[in-house]
């Protein structure tokens, strides 16, 4: 080949490689913009909110005066709602996952259920709020209660729990089931003593991710009509005299962390926005901790299991 032609080809190659480098830099820049923006968000909230965080912040009710306002009713409300959500979503989600993986026949009914679960995962959360407002609050007469909110969020995270359960079950080799059947176990005994215990860590991961999402959900809970200013606590679930357990708290009005933060954010006074920063910082720490735990769990599981 003649020299000019070779030079031309070399320059084409060099140009191609130059574009590679340019794109790699653009890629890193985009990744950094994404990460740094969120870092800025976190630092901004920490700088503004950290001085406000003290023991009183956790033990005070919201107040007209920003300096003495706290998040007591909000974190108690969030905890109670999460308990209801977990208690309903975990058994139903795990049961649905087990059914779809171990029992479901290949027919149109199963297809309908599967398509439905995929679609529900894409429904905007505020629509769940409207569903709950029409169904739980008015048709079932639950009112604006902890129970109504917990059930709403349970419906919202059900697809997450179901998908996690199915993935965990799918990872169990067929030999486990065959061994169990060979020993004379029924299908339920196989599920109860083999499938569920082995898939438990995977289900747990899904549950934690789902709850981390539920704890930050604001829109559906506002939609069912949760109050933004609550200066009392629901009656405690444990009583000193028999029958010791009380379920009155299920029907109590409540507020949750994100609603408290929304309330403070939308006030014009700067002092309340400091409170919002502090509440937001705690909320982000909680969700990050839960998600981090789930990612770590999944990572450990992937490494430790050798079938």
């Amino acid at each position, binding site marked *: 080949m003649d020299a000019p032609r070779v030079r031309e080809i070399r320059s084409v190659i060099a140009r191609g490689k130059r*574009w590679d480098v340019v794109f790699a830099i653009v890629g890193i820049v985009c990744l950094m913009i*994404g990460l740094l923006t969120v870092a800025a968000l976190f630092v901004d909230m920490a700088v503004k909110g950290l001085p406000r965080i003290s023991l009183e912040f956790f033990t005070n009710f919201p107040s007209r005066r920003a300096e003495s306002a706290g998040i007591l009713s909000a974190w108690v409300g969030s905890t109670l709602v999460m308990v209801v959500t977990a208690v309903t979503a975990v058994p139903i989600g795990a049961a649905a996952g087990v059914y779809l993986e171990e029992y479901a026949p290949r027919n149109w009914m199963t297809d309908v259920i599967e398509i439905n679960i995929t679609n529900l995962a*894409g429904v905007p959360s505020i629509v769940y709020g*409207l569903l709950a407002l029409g169904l739980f609050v008015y048709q079932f007469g639950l009112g604006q209660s902890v129970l109504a909110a917990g059930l709403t969020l349970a419906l919202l995270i059900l697809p997450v729990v179901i998908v996690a359960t199915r993935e965990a079950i799918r990872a169990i080799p067929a030999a486990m089931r065959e061994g169990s059947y060979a020993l004379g176990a029924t299908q*339920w005994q196989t599920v109860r003593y083999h499938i569920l215990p082995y898939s438990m860590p995977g289900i747990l991961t899904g549950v934690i991710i789902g709850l981390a999402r539920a704890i930050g959900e604001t829109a559906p809970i506002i939609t069912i009509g949760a109050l933004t200013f609550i200066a009392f606590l629901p009656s405690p679930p444990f009583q000193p005299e028999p029958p010791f357990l009380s379920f009155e708290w299920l029907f109590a009005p409540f507020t949750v962390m994100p609603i408290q933060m929304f309330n403070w954010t939308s006030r014009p006074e700067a002092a309340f926005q400091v409170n919002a920063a502090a509440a937001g910082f705690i909320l982000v720490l909680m969700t990050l901790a839960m998600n981090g735990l789930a990612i770590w769990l999944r990572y450990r599981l992937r490494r430790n299991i050798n079938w």
Partner: protein
Amino acid sequence: MTLPAAISKRLATRRGRVLRECAIEFMLFLAASLSVFTTLAIVYILVSESVAFFRHVPVIDFLTDTQWTPLFDDAHFGIMVLVSGTLVSSIVALALAVPMGTIIAIYLSEFSTPGIREFAKPLLELLAGIPTIVYGYFALLFVTPILQWLIPSLPGFNLLSAGLVMGIMIVPTVASLSEDAMRAVPAALREGSYAMGATRLQTALKVVTPAAFSGIAAAYILGISRAVGETMILAVAAGMQPNLTWNPMEPAATITSYIVQVALGDLPHGSIGYQTIFAAGLTLMLITLMFNILGHMLRRRYRESY
């Protein structure tokens, strides 16, 4: 008891066992079909309350009126006012999230070292989990002041700041799902492309992206659904006054922030104001559904099988 007798006694309980198995299977089936009931309940609630609403307000007025003042004495119910807010904020968000998410996905899938990928992927998943109310705070009290410094005429509440923060929120979703789709493209395709002398960028853009397009389209559609359905960022940072506008520099209410605004007030059950939020919710569902059907068609059109 001799052994055969014991065995036949165990087998005699078989009927009870079969019955119990059937009962358990039925209960598990009920749990799985709850998802179908949820969908039916959503459709039922939205449609039945909307039907009551449309008895008062003609559908034509709902679609063509240019004012949205349902709580005033002179009530107007033009949903386009809210739809414009939703569309403008979503377009701003997607104009940021789609290019950024795609570039990050291509970079992570085709350019980065495995070390960076292992580090960045879980981090992106973490970001996707931050509550949206926190992003709302960020939009109102951090991004808006910066934008006002750049554009002094910008009002305190505006769609631009809310849309940009929504975009940042959606980037991890788009990036993570697109990257999964690109990584699922068989290595042989890349190797073929490299063997022909293509560079990394040429391979990424001309071979991997088209091959993974059905998965990337699914990621975009999910991004659109999240943008259209996003509530708290808009309720906090975009102001809640209805405003028929295509200008992102203005404050405006969206379908979702209107629902929040009504829910924060104290409307009696069964009033026309109460019914508007279900009509708004139905509109939101139909918009989401439209994009999902579009996505389904795109996926079928571009599906590649190996």
